[in-house]
């Protein structure tokens, strides 16, 4: 049985999932199912989001003005709602990556001292 609590891991994920969502949208617009799949694959399964939590998370980002969405109706197939990052979202992503890098570098130095 692991010594660390599941809550700690869940908090780590919760704190970083929005950063990952913005990062995934940095290059191109994407729809929900695509985001879910890429998040799962790129994170090696670490971010195996419950599907029902992804869309509210995207909408929270939209409410903050970090992403915007629009429907794309193909001639055949399923209509899909695409999300794309806004300028504000891009600035937030840059700031968040800086904080993340500092945190990761700081944590790494502390952990290396313990090895």
């Amino acid at each position, binding site marked *: 049985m692991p010594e660390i609590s599941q809550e700690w891991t869940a*908090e780590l994920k*919760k*704190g970083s999932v*929005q*950063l990952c969502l*913005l990062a995934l949208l940095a290059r191109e617009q994407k*729809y*929900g*199912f695509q985001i879910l799949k890429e998040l799962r694959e790129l994170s090696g399964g670490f971010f195996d989001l*419950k*599907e*029902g*939590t992804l*869309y*509210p998370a995207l*909408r*929270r*980002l939209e*409410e*903050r003005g*970090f992403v915007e969405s629009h*429907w794309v109706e193909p001639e055949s197939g*399923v*209509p*899909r*709602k695409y999300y794309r990052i806004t300028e504000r979202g891009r600035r*937030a992503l840059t700031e*968040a990556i800086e904080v993340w890098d500092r945190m990761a570098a700081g944590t790494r130095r502390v952990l290396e001292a313990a090895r």
Partner: protein
Amino acid sequence: MIPVDAYLGQVRRSLGGMDPRVQEDIVRELQSHLADSLEANGGDVGAATQALGDPVAVARRYREIYGYGASYRRLFYIVAGVTGILTVPVLFAGDEAVFPYFISAIFVAIEFAFLIWVSVMAGNRAGILSGLSGVVGRMAGFGAAIVANRGAFLIAPDGFAAFLLVSFLFVIVGWLPGKAKQAWRRPGAEL
């Protein structure tokens, strides 16, 4: 196993009271997701709906973002305002008090309960506005009593202080529960 239509129907029902355009957009997006999910998993409806999660819980997450729609919020303000009128203990018809204290006290309790519900369910902003609407209702009721009973002694100074205090509490009760819920149920740190 819940069929897709039944699943989406449950989500839609649980979104009741939200802005209809937002409801439609949410259901349409979930429908689109389920179509993609079914295509990816070979048509296993049970697995697709299970992966999305309990429809009521899914709807609750959206409710936390969008709250109630404008028409429902207006209805809350009207109910709070009308109940506010009924909380005034000084309404007279001739020499008879038609709203003695104990009846108005019942309406004060109903108003408090309603404001707590609005604040928790629709957010502290809707709660504050409902509380203010209750205050306006009380003032209107009191004003009507003064106009209808010119020259009569309607309320003692202590009674007037209590009147203002209860009115002030309407706004506080409209604000506090929603604010407390927001603080306790705040989603994890956001960007």
